[in-house]
């Protein structure tokens, strides 16, 4: 953890910022999902949709947060496949809700 072993290319920091950008994109999509769900009033179905979208968003945030914490070291370990898969599945879930709310 001394300054000497730190990568001068700041790769961990760049990766952390990439996670940040990605969570911001996910937030925008989740907000659009909530807006879509509440479009026709706060019916029970709409509330379920809001809850599910929030859950997908929180799942994404959790993966990102754990990864950002892990990236705080000078030589961070590689991303675990489970984290990558969870992030992708949360994305897919948001798409699935969007498709479901079309009808």
């Amino acid at each position, binding site marked *: 953890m001394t300054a000497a072993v730190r990568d001068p290319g700041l790769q961990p920091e760049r990766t952390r910022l990439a996670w940040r950008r990605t969570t911001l994109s996910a937030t925008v999509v989740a907000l659009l999902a909530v807006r879509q769900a509440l479009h026709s009033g706060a019916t029970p179905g709409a509330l379920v949709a809001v809850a599910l979208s929030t859950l997908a968003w929180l799942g994404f945030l959790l993966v990102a947060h754990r990864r950002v914490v892990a990236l705080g070291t000078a030589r961070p370990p590689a991303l675990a496949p*489970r984290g990558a898969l969870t992030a992708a599945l949360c994305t897919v879930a948001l798409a699935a809700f969007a498709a479901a709310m079309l009808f």
Partner: protein
Amino acid sequence: MNKIAQSVRLWFAPQRVREEGNTPDYRFSLANERTFLAWVRTALALIGGGFAVDQFLPDLAWGVRAGLALGLLAAGVLCALRAVNHWVRCERAMRRGEDLPVSRFPTLLSLVVAVVAVAMVVVVLFGWESG
């Protein structure tokens, strides 16, 4: 089909990626991770576009709107799943010291985006609005 099943199994068995080969320089793994995140952002943008078509173009006929939105959403889903798959394959190739996998996916995605864009132009020009 067998190859697809094998890679899906690899997604769910994280420790198997680490079983073979040597751990590459952590900077290469991080670069691979950033590429993965860039693809996830692309997927999120496509999905956001799908939501936006449905919410901000209320004057379009329902069929056109649903078709465009579903096209964008399907592209987003494919993009997200492919992001994981490509990340796993790159990680494995780096561990084994092989060449990185090549892929037709970027071309396919650009074609899909181009088709959606042309569809939008046609819709705007001919004004397929409902009643």
